[in-house]
Structure formats: structure tokens, C-alpha cells
């Protein structure tokens, strides 16, 4: 099997599994308990918090554990909105291609009286600091812009955006779910006020994430209950998952440079190979790009059939077609970069990690053109384009 869907989830690293096992065997107490067993769990919890903080240039008190990236996004945005509303600020800036955890939260806030401005992301899928600067108003409560896009791999100019927000005194949140462990993060130098993390995107366990919030930013509770996480997130901490997350992030950050260099080579081979398929196009920024992310649209075919046939050949990938999203519309990200519905249906995302090899790339580059060719051959839409009855878009 060739796993090329690391943007969906990753295989847990050995370091992460070992950390979890150790914790489950030895430190299985409740960190809120007074006796030694509980206190050892508390120590494991706090040392994991410290490890994660170090990886992103934060201090441990600024890290709150959540159930994952979505909860972290929800909590960051809700907290900033509440804070803004108290000062009469009800304007929020974000982008059109954020993750649904951000967009759906913003939609709810809109219904609650906030004004949400989604910046257009252009054909390459990015925004500039200047766009952000021009959108900031007196009543802007928050700027929430992702570090890297999960579907098309664009890496956004987060440091520049952070600098603009700091200068204008506006809170800046970034969803760094796809970036953490793959790109350097330094919340201080990058002027990031809040940042969302998800463990399973960097070879950690599922169901655990974290929210960084700069000291002094009060977080609003999404879950009421006990005083865990210093009153910011109730519920007994998932200590083994937290330990697994810390080990995974530490491991990913320790090898970030070598992994990124290796994976980028494979990525570029894939991009070069797939570009040879006629009437295809790379999605996302070709230069400022996640090391492992490859996203293409192939005209005249539909993504789900492509995925099923690749699965038959042992290749795990994903698509932004409507049929794979379970809705009638294709991916909002592909629509946001201006791909027409028809073209967006024929999308393929391959996301690599350091476990992938050149042999994987060769196999993918053999399979994808064959499958695309086969599907085009049975596609009346493709035939109409070839015969000139309909125009090619790509």
C-alpha cells in the first residue's frame, strides 16, 4: 500500500506510540488526584505541555489541550469574539479557504451579529499582509488566517500578517494544523496571538490537539465542568494522548529540516510528472508550498472514480469532488481559487510524508496517468472537449 494522504491523517510515529504506552502503563492516574499515582500523571501532563511549548516558542502556561484542531479553532475564535464584543468590536477578518472548523464558527458568529470579512485568496491560494492591513478596521476584533492550506498546500505569509496585526493591535489567530511539525513555528517572532494544533497531522494520536494563547488573552470555555486546564477546558485530561502528542511534535520538529528536504524532492517529482498529463493543473502556490502537498485538477473526469481506481492499485489519496465531500458542491477551497465546479470535481490530492519513497512516486506516476486516461476514455464530457463541441478549461 502507498499511503499518500498525510494531510488527512498520519501514521503514528514510534516515539509517539511508546510515549502513550508508557503513560498508559505507568502514569494512568488522574492528574487531579493528590496521591503519588495522580501526581505522576500530572508530571507527565506538565512535561508534555512544556515539550509542546518549546516546539513553538511559547511558554507552557500558554498551552491548553483540546480534543483536536477543530476544538482549538472554535475556542480561539469564540474567545476573541467575546473579548472584542466587550469593547464593541464585532468585525472579524479571515479567508475564503479556511478549514470548516473556522468557517462554520464564523458563520455562527455572523448570525450572532458579528461582521465577517473573508479575504479572497486569488488563483494561487494565498493572501498578502497588505490585504489584511487594508481590511483591518477600528472595530476589528480578530484576524484568523491559516498557516498552510490543507487541500492545496499553499503556505501563507504568516510572519508578515502577524506583524501587521501586532502593529494595528488586532488579535491574530492562525490554524497551524497542517503546518505544525512540518514548518518552523515561533509564536513570538511571528507575532502569533493564538494558534491551533492537531496531533494526528504530525504522526501523533487522533482526538488530541492544543490551543496556544498568548499570556494575557483570556480563553472562553466551550466545555463547562471541572477546573482542568486552569479552568479553560473542563474534563479529565487525556494524559496518554497528550504525552503521545508531545513526543510526536518533538520528534517531528527535531527532524523537520531533513524530512522537509526529502519530502519536497518527492513532491516536486510528482508535480513534474503529473503536469505532463494534458489538460491538468496544479492547485495552490507552486513556490510557497507545504513540503508534502500535491494537488491537481484533471479536466473531464470525476475525483471519486479516480480515488476508487487508485485504491484498487493500492494508492490512498483524496479529492475535493462533491461526491467525496458528501455534499453537492465540490471543495470550497478549489472554488475559492477560481476553479469552476466542473474542474473542481476532477481534483486529486496527494500528501506525502518522510516514509514515502521514490518507488512510491514512480508507482503513483504510473497509475495516475493510466487511470485518468481510462476515465477520460469513458467520459462523454472529455469526448465533447476533444471533438471541439465543448471548450477546454485547463
Amino acid at each position, binding site marked *: 500500500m502507498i499511503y499518500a494522504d498525510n494531510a488527512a491523517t498520519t501514521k503514528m510515529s514510534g516515539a509517539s506510540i511508546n510515549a502513550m504506552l508508557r503513560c498508559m502503563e505507568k502514569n494512568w492516574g488522574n492528574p487531579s488526584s493528590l496521591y503519588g499515582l495522580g501526581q505522576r500523571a500530572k508530571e507527565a501532563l506538565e512535561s508534555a505541555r512544556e515539550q509542546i511549548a518549546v516546539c513553538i516558542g511559547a511558554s507552557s502556561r500558554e498551552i491548553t489541550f483540546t480534543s483536536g484542531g477543530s476544538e482549538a479553532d472554535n475556542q480561539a475564535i469564540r474567545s476573541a469574539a467575546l473579548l472584542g464584543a466587550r469593547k464593541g468590536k464585532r468585525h472579524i477578518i479571515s479567508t475564503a479557504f479556511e478549514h470548516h472548523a473556522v468557517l462554520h464558527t464564523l458563520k455562527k458568529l455572523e448570525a450572532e451579529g458579528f461582521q465577517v470579512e473573508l479575504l479572497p485568496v486569488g488563483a494561487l491560494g494565498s493572501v498578502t499582509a497588505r490585504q489584511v492591513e487594508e481590511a483591518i478596521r477600528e472595530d476589528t476584533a480578530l484576524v484568523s488566517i491559516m498557516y498552510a492550506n490543507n487541500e492545496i498546500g499553499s503556505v501563507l505569509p504568516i510572519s508578515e500578517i502577524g506583524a501587521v496585526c501586532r502593529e494595528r493591535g488586532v488579535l491574530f489567530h492562525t490554524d497551524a494544523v497542517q503546518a505544525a511539525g512540518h514548518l518552523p513555528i515561533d509564536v513570538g517572532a511571528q507575532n502569533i496571538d493564538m494558534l491551533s494544533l492537531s496531533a494526528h497531522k504530525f504522526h501523533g494520536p487522533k482526538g488530541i490537539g492544543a490551543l496556544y494563547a498568548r499570556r494575557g488573552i483570556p480563553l472562553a470555555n466551550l466545555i463547562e465542568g471541572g477546573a482542568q486546564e486552569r479552568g479553560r477546558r473542563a474534563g479529565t485530561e487525556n494524559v496518554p494522548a497528550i504525552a503521545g502528542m508531545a513526543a510526536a511534535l518533538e520528534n517531528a520538529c527535531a527532524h523537520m529540516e531533513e524530512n522537509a528536504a526529502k519530502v519536497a524532492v518527492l513532491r516536486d517529482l510528482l508535480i513534474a510528472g503529473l503536469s505532463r498529463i494534458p489538460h491538468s493543473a496544479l492547485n495552490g502556490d507552486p513556490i510557497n508550498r507545504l513540503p508534502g502537498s500535491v494537488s491537481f485538477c484533471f479536466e*473531464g*473526469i*470525476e475525483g471519486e*472514480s479516480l480515488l476508487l481506481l487508485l485504491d484498487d492499485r493500492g494508492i490512498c489519496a483524496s479529492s475535493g469532488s462533491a461526491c467525496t465531500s458528501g455534499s453537492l458542491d465540490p471543495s470550497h477551497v478549489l472554488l475559492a481559487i477560481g476553479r469552476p465546479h466542473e474542474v473542481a470535481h476532477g481534483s486529486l490530492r496527494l500528501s506525502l510524508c518522510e516514509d514515502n519513497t521514490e518507488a512510491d512516486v514512480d508507482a503513483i506516476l504510473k497509475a495516475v496517468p493510466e487511470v485518468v486516461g481510462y476515465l477520460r476514455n469513458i*467520459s*462523454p464530457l*472529455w469526448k465533447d472537449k476533444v471533438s471541439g463541441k465543448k471548450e477546454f478549461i485547463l
Partner: protein
Amino acid sequence: MALYSETVMDHFRNPRNVGVIEDADGVGEVGNAVCGDIMKIYLKIEGGIVSDVKFETFGCGSAIASSSMATELIKGKPLEQVLRLTNKAVAEALDGLPAHKLHCSVLAEEAIRAAVKDYYDRQGIAYDPKEFPACDSCEGCQIS
């Protein structure tokens, strides 16, 4: 549990009757690229019977499987029987489709009806237009 039944996967992987009939007696095409499915059915009619049928489909796994199964169900059948083919029959023959994929079987039924209508039109055979409603009922077509 897999998304699709084994029968769907079989018809998707090894579609029956895929291709073109150059001298078809009736051709029907339904769906649109915006929705992500287009089905085209070619019919050869001899003595009121479907003597040959081929299809081309742009769409997801269930769209391709539905086209394949629908063509199998009408091959060798008299036209009156072909017109009685329902999307339900196509979906049942495939051992079921996920709820959000049922429209693929609707598309297969409509493509076949469109091909029969084309045959009637070409032959000057009279029919009740109500039997061939325009393809506008599909929720997928409501994308703005």
C-alpha cells in the same frame, strides 16, 4: 463497512457495455458537468427491441456502476419494458446505493428514457410527452 456494495464495485471496475455505437438509433445524454455527472446512452433498436446498448459516463463510482447496470437491464428488452425501468430497479440490482448516491440511479433511468425519446423522434413515432419529463428534478441541478 465499505461505501459501496460488491455489485457496485464490480460494475464500476468492470463496466458492461461501455463505449459508443456509431450508427445508434437513439442517443440520450443527461446531467451536467457542474453537478459532476453526465451519462450518455446509445441504443440500437431492431424490431422494437434493444439489440445493442452502450454508455459513456463522466461521474463518480456509483454513476459509472449505475450506467453499467442499467444497460444490462435493458439489453435485449422490448422498448415498452425499457420505459418501465425505474431508478429503484437499478439501485436494487446493484444491491443498494448510499442515500446520497441515489441520484446516480435516477440519472441512469433518465438517460435511457432520453435515448428512447430520441429514437421515437428520429422515427417519427408518436408518444405522450408527459412520459418524458425534462431533466430538472435532480437536486444537483439546483447549484447556482
